């Protein structure tokens, strides 16, 4: 699901939750989830940087085709990490939206 679709779906649900007395609990749960995911994404960010640096260091010793494959795999994984960051942003926005309604 695209982030925009997710935002739309969440907005619909949040509208229905505004009157629920437990909306605050949900907002807190979302914030905790975002925090934990940001920790994991922080680790990924540092590790990708380290792995890229190592790949650059050993690139001369690798066959060009394998180096290209390795770099493509890293790029793909970094794209997946970026997608996760975007989704965390969506969850965080949902928590803020719930806060505003309580």
């Amino acid at each position: 699901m695209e982030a925009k679709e997710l935002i739309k779906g969440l907005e619909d649900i949040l509208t229905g939750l505004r009157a629920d007395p437990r909306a605050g609990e949900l907002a807190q749960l979302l914030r905790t989830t975002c925090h934990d995911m940001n920790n994991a994404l922080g680790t990924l960010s540092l590790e990708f940087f380290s792995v890229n640096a190592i790949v650059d260091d050993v690139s001369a010793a690798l066959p060009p085709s394998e180096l290209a494959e390795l770099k493509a795999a890293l790029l793909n994984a970094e794209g997946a990490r970026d997608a996760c960051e975007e989704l965390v942003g969506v969850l965080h926005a949902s928590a803020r939206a719930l806060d505003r309604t309580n």
Partner: protein
Amino acid sequence: MAFMREIQVSSQTSIASPGATVVIVDDDASFVNALARMVSERRPDARVLTALDGFAGGMLVAAERPDLLLLDVHMNGMDGVEVCRRIRANVELASVQIVILSGHLTPESESELRRLGVLNCFHKPVPPQRIHALLHEHLPPRLMAGEETPSGS
């Protein structure tokens, strides 16, 4: 001293040298490992010490008086804001530079942390280039091989 209490301190020393000292306090062990490795790689002359909770981190800071503290906020037990308060209440730790690396910061906690004199607040995930920049900006210049340790350090 505010942090002196009988507890187990979870810390490790990766490199012992007369250079700068960096303390990392975060309850996410994976992040701590990655960050400690990055700091050691960037500044091999530095001692990198770590703790996995606020109280242990505060004790480590009180004992080691690091040049730079990289501190998380949301941790079980003592959180990063309270760690900062206790450090700032101790005049002997006035020279410790504090940078916040947090997965979630409210405007209120960020405001309180800045009032307590932290140098900067970063939201995770922090771009590695920012980590490099803050090490460059806030650590004493790297000692070269054979160079004398500055007196008093």
